[in-house]
């Protein structure tokens, strides 16, 4: 059982939760989180690793309050227990060379650990981050720690800002229309793009076939075979 060491609102409706004792994982992987001893909500909620401090073993999650589950999370106090199953899924491949990260809204969360990991794995590469928000930006300072350039857009269309002709690999996470636009642009430019998909989940570990999506390589479980896919593989289903 993990313990909540911090749980604060960092922007309107956006919370940061720090856990100690949670399983550690890679950028793009996620945890299935649930308040123990309550059947309401019944299912665990998937949240991506936003950052990990390997020294202290602290996992940071950043989440938006949407419905019942995330609202209940936001009310938990420091010291509360949290059931954390993971690391779930396959994360972002760390392609060597320059990288461009494109995040929309709460989709920025997993990209922070990705920037962190890209920087660590290849300190000299250039990392550019495009972040788009509806109203209020967050995590900007944190991205500054790892990225060379961070451009922030509020209210616009973030994929318009990105140039798909420069980097070795592109990574996108955010709402489906954004992913779709990115996938189209990347395909046209022949760029390598990895995107993170979402679907309602029951088990989160690949056992229930509840989150299957159609890909070029047949049915894939988003929770186990994803959530990160090469955009070419899932292009049709977006």
């Amino acid at each position: 059982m993990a313990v909540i060491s911090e749980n604060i609102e960092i922007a309107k409706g956006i919370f940061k939760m720090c856990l100690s004792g949670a399983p550690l994982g890679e950028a793009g992987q996620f945890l299935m989180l649930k308040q123990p001893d309550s059947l309401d909500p019944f299912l665990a909620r998937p949240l991506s690793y936003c950052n990990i401090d390997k020294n202290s073993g602290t996992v940071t999650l950043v989440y938006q309050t949407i419905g019942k589950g995330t609202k209940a999370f936001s009310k938990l106090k420091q010291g509360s227990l949290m059931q954390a199953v993971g690391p779930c899924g396959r994360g972002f491949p760390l392609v060597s060379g320059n990288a461009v990260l494109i995040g929309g809204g709460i989709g920025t969360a997993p990209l922070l650990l990705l920037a962190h990991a890209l920087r660590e794995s290849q300190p000299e590469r250039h990392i550019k981050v495009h972040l788009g928000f509806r109203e209020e930006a967050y995590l900007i300072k944190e991205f500054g720690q790892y990225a060379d350039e961070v451009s922030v857009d509020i209210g616009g269309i973030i994929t318009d800002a990105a140039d798909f002709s420069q980097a070795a690999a592109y990574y996108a996470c955010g709402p489906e229309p954004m992913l779709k636009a990115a996938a189209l642009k990347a395909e046209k430019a022949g760029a390598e793009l990895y995107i993170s998909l979402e679907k309602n989940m029951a088990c989160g570990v690949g056992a229930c076939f509840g989150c299957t999506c159609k890909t070029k390589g047949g049915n894939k479980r988003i929770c186990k075979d994803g959530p990160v896919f090469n955009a070419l593989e899932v292009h049709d289903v977006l």
Partner: protein
Amino acid sequence: MSYEPLVTEFLGVTLKNPVLAASGTVGFGREYETLASLSKLGGICSKGLTLNGSLGNDGPRIYETPAGLLNSIGLENPGVGRFIKEELPFMRSLGCAVIANLGGHSEIEYIKGASLLNDAEIDILELNISCPNILDGGMAFGIDPKSAADITKKVKAKSRHPLLVKLTPNAPDLIAVAAACEEAGADGLSLVNTFLGMAIDTKLRKPVFNNVYAGLSGPAIFPIALRMVHEVCKAVSIPVAGIGGIAAKEDALSFLMAGASVVQIGSMTFAAPDTMAKLVDELYDYCKLNALENIRQIVGIL
């Protein structure tokens, strides 16, 4: 001799304990092997198999409800052949009983599937005539006593494995179906499969699921499932596997006292993967505390 109060004979198979993983909730065992300590269990039921495999249903497949969930997986599975080759060896390696859950869209598909499984080292064949998520076949066979008996008899004739027939709570006359399956040669019954339910996306003003209806499981259904198991246990004399909404020890004990010889845990594994392993320990402690020689002493005690 050591104290082994949980050892249970079920359909001629010796189980370490009466706690089984329900079909469709642990896949073929790989993903939950460690998380749910599967090798500690009495047995695990495979995901529902069909003769030639299936890609399952399109659209949303999972929808949370109060203390439960609706699912519309639609029997996504690799088919009986690939199951035997690719999944069974791993399941066998877990060291608990292996139950193959067999679905189908037609009589011939069921019979061929069962025949193919004669080549496989499974312990029990669970005949799923209760899946609400495929449009033809599935639950249709389990709704009516006559068709349930028919398919049971035909599969029984072909199969060399002990036959557990899994019933649907959506049958108009569940007791008649149960009795008909017993009469037709079923070695045991398992119930309940999921209840037909519905969810609506009020923003889109349309049903959440492509099939409109889907199957409800989880603690929400426990009181109804318990009543049905109680009714069926009084009506038949073959062993029953009690299923439906088990979340904790009290629930499992309730099913046993209502007459079930073993229990299967499904949805609760999603919510808390250690549920089944914890239950095994708790039932052991329960026997010890109550000086039971064997857990079967409370089966049907009501």
